[in-house]
């Protein structure tokens, strides 16, 4: 059996899934200030009365790292960066202990200026004296040549508890994002490590000696050991938990819009042929733009508890929440009150809802029921407008080849899947605002925790090969290999897939069921004068985000001997 636990803003959901399907599902309130207690309470409840030996895996999605970042509770980190021609690296300064040092590479990864070892040693000593225990290194074009980052990291190593290195965190080009990503990993590292070690201990005390996995924002998971090397990869995994929860029941072809409608917000994502769409670059959180791979999700301030207002004779919903609905003792009218009035909701004080809606109905000159429907429709209309905006943005994403521009067709969702608290109510009404089909995700109240439990291990690999310089670099995989000048695009694909396979297994994937794909493969002839001097090859490959082998969505059962 697998435990999936997803910490949300208001509730923490947990499920226990096994050969008989969902054995248990629980909800406990989230206390952001007591996250450890929240997680252990959830685990406690979901495992109560279950034989610990039956539990084979725990998958967690928490708000730990995101909270640290948003609340700016980050420890000091020594950031060492080296630029080169272009924007002054001082302008990318991200924190107090930020040093732009000597050393430069050009766009093909050829050294322009060497690093100055003494300069770095001096900085390291200074930082150590002032009590800084974690460091990050990021240099320009390190994904084409990681030499400088490695040299700097080697010098720093003795002075710090842990040094994070830019090229090992992402193979993508973007120096400012590399700096940010390196910084955030170093900054969340100590709390992350301590937190999950504590979780592990508390599980052990319950007799649960099982691997802990942590959900990533790209809809995949990684082992705890692996997460210690990439702690920032746990940021904002919440939306991906919901998407993975919907995935099992999603149409295998066509474009599907997934809506996770909560109390405060609606999170949206897109599935194409049953596979979630990834964000083009990486997560953006607070002021930080990163290279942390994530599903493409968008959040908007419309939910069951959003504030309803009359503005210039028209209704608005959200974007903020001021507590619960009137019917549940809150201060203002919300869509939930409209459900109450319409009799779509069990529980709640209908009288209070009616009282709140009456002035709105009078102002709109409508009956109470019609006013409630108008509120409902307004919420649906805003959600659909947000979805259209997201889809327009996806469709206007620039492409760089004639083929893609000429052949590329715009996506248009044919199906909507709804999950979250008010999912059934919304699904029915959304159908009248949409010209495709709408369905409610099974287990809509805990689908996020289910998604967490069932997500497979993902990873990606970026490979650059330059046959003129006779070198292949997959910086994230610590690989810099001499290659022959006859190295081909197919060789590069093969190498990338091999590296990806190894990486996925290292992160905890099941080697028998790897769903690998090459997502980008470019090859350029490099001509100097009128001669071809070599080929410049770029490959990106990934484990497709998806569910683990053995889960049967029809029966809802997990058919795996080992789990």
């Amino acid at each position, binding site marked *: 059996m697998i435990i999936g636990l997803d910490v949300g803003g208001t509730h923490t959901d947990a499920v226990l899934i096994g050969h008989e399907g969902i054995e248990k599902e629980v909800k406990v309130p989230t206390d952001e200030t007591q996250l450890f207690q929240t997680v252990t309470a959830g685990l406690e409840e979901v495992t109560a009365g279950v034989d610990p030996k039956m539990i084979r895996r725990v998958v967690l999605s928490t708000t730990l790292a995101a909270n640290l970042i948003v609340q700016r509770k980050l420890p000091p980190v020594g950031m060492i960066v080296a*630029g080169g*021609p*272009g924007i*002054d690296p001082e*302008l990318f300064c991200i924190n107090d202990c930020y040093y732009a040092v000597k050393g430069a590479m050009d766009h*093909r990864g050829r050294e322009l200026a060497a690093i100055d070892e003494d300069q770095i040693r001096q900085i390291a000593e200074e930082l150590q004296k002032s009590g800084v225990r974690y460091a990050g290194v990021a240099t320009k074009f390190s994904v084409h040549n990681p030499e400088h980052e490695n040299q700097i990291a080697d010098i720093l190593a003795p002075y710090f508890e842990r040094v994070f290195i830019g090229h090992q965190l992402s193979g993508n080009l973007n120096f400012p994002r590399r700096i940010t990503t390196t910084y955030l990993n170093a900054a969340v590292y100590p709390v992350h490590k301590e937190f999950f070690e504590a979780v592990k201990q508390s599980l052990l005390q319950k007799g649960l000696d099982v691997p802990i996995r942590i959900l990533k924002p790209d809809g995949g998971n990684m082992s705890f050991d692996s997460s210690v090397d990439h702690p920032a990869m746990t940021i904002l995994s919440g939306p991906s938990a919901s998407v993975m929860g919907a995935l099992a029941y999603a149409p295998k072809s066509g474009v599907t819009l997934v809506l996770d409608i909560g109390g405060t917000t609606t999170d949206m994502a897109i599935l194409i042929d049953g596979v979630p769409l990834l964000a083009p670059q990486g997560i953006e959180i607070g002021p930080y733009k990163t290279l942390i791979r994530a599903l493409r999700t968008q959040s908007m301030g419309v939910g069951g508890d959003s504030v309803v207002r009359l503005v210039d004779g028209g209704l608005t919903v959200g974007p903020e929440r001021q507590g619960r609905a009137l019917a549940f003792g809150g201060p203002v009218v919300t869509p939930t009150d409209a459900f109450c009035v319409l009799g779509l909701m069990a529980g709640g004080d209908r009288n209070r809802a009616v009282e709140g809606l009456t002035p709105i109905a009078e102002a709109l000159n409508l009956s109470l029921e019609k006013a409630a429907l108008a509120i409902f429709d307004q919420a649906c209309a805003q959600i659909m407008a947000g979805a259209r905006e997201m889809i327009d943005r996806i469709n206007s994403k620039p492409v*760089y*080849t004639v083929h893609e521009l000429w052949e590329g067709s715009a996506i248009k969702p044919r199906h909507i899947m709804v999950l979250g608290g008010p999912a059934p109510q919304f699904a029915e009404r959304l159908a009248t605002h949409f010209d495709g089909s709408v369905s409610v995700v099974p287990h809509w109240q805990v689908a996020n925790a289910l998604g967490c439990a069932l997500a497979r291990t993902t990873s990606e690999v970026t490979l650059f090969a330059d046959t003129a310089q006779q070198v292949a670099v997959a910086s994230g995989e610590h690989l810099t290999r001499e290659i022959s000048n006859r190295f081909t695009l197919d060789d590069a694909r093969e190498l990338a897939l091999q590296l990806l396979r190894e990486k996925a297994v290292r992160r905890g994937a099941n080697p028998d069921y790897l769903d690998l794909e090459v997502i980008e493969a470019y090859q350029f*002839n490099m001509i100097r004068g009128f001669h071809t001097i070599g080929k410049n090859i770029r490959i990106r490959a990934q484990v497709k985000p998806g569910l683990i082998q053995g889960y049967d969505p029809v029966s809802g059962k997990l058919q795996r001997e080992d789990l």
Partner: protein
Amino acid sequence: MLRAKNKTGLVFFPAFDWAISPTHPEREERLLYTQDQVFEEGLLDIEGIFEYKPDLVTVKDVQRVHFCIPDPWAVMTESHFISAGGAKTIGMAVMDGKVDRGFALVRPPGHHANRVVHGARGFCNVNIEAIMIEYLRRAYGVDRVAIVDTDCHHGDGTQDIYWHDPDTLFISIHQDGRTLYPGSGFLNENGGPNAVGSTINIPLPPHTSDEGFLYTIKEMVLPILQDFKPQLIINSAGQDNHYSDPITNMNFSARGYAQLTDLLQADIAVLEGGYSIEGALPYVNTGIILAMAGLDYNHLVEPDYDEERYRQTSETTRYIEQTGVRVLKNWQQRRRLAEEMRVQPQCSHRSRRIFYDTDNIYEVQSETIRVCEECAGALRIETSSDKRGNALAVHIPRKACHTCKEQGYQWYESAKLDLFERIHLQDRPEDKYLVRQRNSA
């Protein structure tokens, strides 16, 4: 966090799957390292810089500018529809006020494409700036436009298209035509009889460096722009004046290009040539983007740049100063020069042979313009080439007077189809394009 002072739009379209031929300078690899540099700098993440996906231009957009012989499909590939579309997208973003300024970083380029097109010359098939400008004039009612062409090669195609248009100021700064393709662009090329002075050529001697280019902008281009008072300034931003360019002989640097961009304050820049794909383009394009956005570019120095080595001689400086005196004199005396040219009767003629170096085509043209006090004048071009046959092309200008409109239609309707395979009419006031051809007569 970096924030652009000017909201800046970018279309980046490197056409990674398109080349004139595998080893041609205009090939897939051309913007690869530029992409690497632009991505690695994180330029597209900077607040206030917006990347747009290029629209495609329509055949109508193309035919507002060009006479394609025999038709647009014969002379264009998909990539040309996109690169012209990229310029158009940026133009629209600026006109719609979505951004203050914009840069179309697209290929293939266009400034060697004339009004009549039989094929590719100087790597260009259709004139992407002109297609954009004429679209903006039609859609937004823009009237006065200035084009400053800073490619190392004379922008002879743009010059040809605007030769008779008094509302378009075309300034080309380039390496002296006696030393470089296409061998034109001399001081005495000032525009046709209805538009004398609105074409300005500033040939610079080989080995001109930052000093000479910036002098040219400050002392010649800016004063003339101030006089002309354009509503839009377009920069045909070729990058082959760079000291590392393999097919030219100038000594301009990336920071020099950024300074030029800063001085010129163009509303729209469109990439033209530039074939030092590793040594120049990544740095020059970054410099132009930073300068357009109003960001600091002082850290942008090519790894092998040596200011001393690329400094121009005092002789070059003097030569450029003398050129400046003549350029400004021509500009100030443009009205007198026009009167001298207009002593001729009603129509003015010129005959030309045009070689399409990229496609190896020879074209012969005979052009007649109606000398007109009121408008740009009706234009009649007889054209034929060894590969595409012959045609008659009649252009009625955008703000044509009644007489020129009638003259245009008279030329179009009275022409004999036994002499021409096709007869084309560009009726700009009506935004129409008509064709008469043998089999459909």
